[in-house]
């Protein structure tokens, strides 16, 4: 046991580096993906049929394709279209597309949860479409969407493990490399798992707390 603890201590900096890279990729994909998801959530309700249909196609492709395949498409596929991306850039791009598609549905749900009376009150006050969206619908809708968005952020962080397949040196790549060079796969992978759990468990608990808070707020 103490032998394994010693190994873990030795490996920890390297694995933490991998975890940090995963967090960066997840953070960047969300920073790009969530605003894009917001745009898709709005265009899917647009008056123009063309815009609505285009949005639906983008969302269905983004959600229907496995994240792994999106990653491979970005890293191994785009070069044959003349666009060569680093593993980091391809990871962020693919996961951002995935995030945009999923969060658009989450945000749409949040916006739809805003009571009709709220929109009517804004209309009756003569507020413009844009002001109604900005000051009335978005603040309330995004508050509803916040817990599931956080939940999805955890999923994206977990999804960065798939970047192993496109040679990004994230947590799992590091654990695998350690395993390959020492033949101690199990302890290396267990430590990697513990690191994931150490982030994801508290984060899901936070989501739960937020959900209950928000529920209480809405009942009030």
């Amino acid at each position, binding site marked *: 046991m103490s032998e394994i603890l010693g190994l873990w201590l030795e490996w920890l900096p390297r694995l933490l580096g991998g975890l940090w890279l995963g967090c960066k990729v997840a953070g960047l994909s969300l920073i790009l993906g969530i605003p894009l998801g917001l745009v898709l959530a709005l265009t899917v309700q647009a008056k123009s049929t063309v815009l609505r249909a285009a949005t639906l196609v983008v969302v269905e492709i983004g959600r229907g394709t496995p994240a792994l395949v999106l990653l491979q498409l970005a890293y191994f596929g785009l070069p044959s279209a003349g666009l060569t991306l680093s593993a980091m850039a391809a990871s962020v791009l693919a996961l951002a597309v995935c995030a945009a598609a999923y969060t658009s549905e989450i945000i749409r749900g949040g916006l739809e949860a805003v009571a009709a009376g709220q929109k009517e009150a*804004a209309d*009756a006050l003569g*507020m413009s479409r844009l002001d109604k969206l900005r000051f009335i619908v978005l603040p309330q809708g995004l508050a509803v969407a916040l817990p599931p968005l956080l939940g999805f952020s955890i999923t994206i962080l977990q999804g960065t493990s798939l970047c192993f397949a496109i040679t990004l040196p994230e947590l799992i790549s590091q654990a695998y490399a350690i395993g390959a060079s020492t033949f101690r796969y199990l302890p290396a992978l267990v430590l990697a798992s513990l690191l994931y759990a150490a982030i994801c468990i508290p984060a899901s608990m936070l989501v739960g707390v937020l959900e209950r808070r928000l529920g209480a707020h809405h009942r009030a």
Partner: protein
Amino acid sequence: MNETSATDIRPLVLVEGLRKSFGSHEVLKGIDLSVQRGEIVAIIGPSGSGKSTLLRCVNQLETHTAGTVTVAGVTIGPDSASHDRELQKLRRNVGMVFQSFNLFPHLNVLRNVSIAQQRVLGRSQAEADERSMQLLTRVGLADKAKQYPARCSGGQQQRIAIARALALDPQIMLFDEPTSALDPELGLEVLAVMRELAEGGMTMIVVTHEMHFAEDVSNRVLIMADGEIIEQGPSREVMQKPQTERARQFLSAVRDR
């Protein structure tokens, strides 16, 4: 600006041949209504008779199927032929108070009253807040300014909603059963505010189940049934000597309750 001056003798609200269908279900079957400046019109009638729909057509929360709605010189034709601009121009003159208050739960009371002044009238935050505090004082809720709506009673929320609508200096106020969601004693504080408004000369159309309000405060009562106005006239006359059988039945039914 001419057409909205105080000496104008044209009606403030003119509804002509108004029809409204939801799908194949015709809810308003040709309504004509004109409301003069300073008039207080009460609309009563059984539930489902189209009172709310009529009110919502006046400020175009609902588009109509045929006829015209004119408010303070802005005329809107059937089925959203009009642009957002026109709608906003019309709504700027019309305040509305809903049965379910519809305060913005994420904004405090002061912001609730100020936001449209800033965004619609272009007032500065300081100007808007000053006006809001005046109005909140008038409805007796200045001390609630920094609270969130959820912390206020239903009666307080409805009075805040009235202040919010008044903040845009509307020429007419529409009320859709403003006390129906409230316990009777909380309804009274709302009715008191409305009475005061009426005494101040505000033009009002009030859909209500409060027969006392209809009889004592309003100048004119309209009785609706099945999408039509079945009787209208000076409040006392309509309430005490209804001419049609249907109106008599409706009034005796609500009085028995």
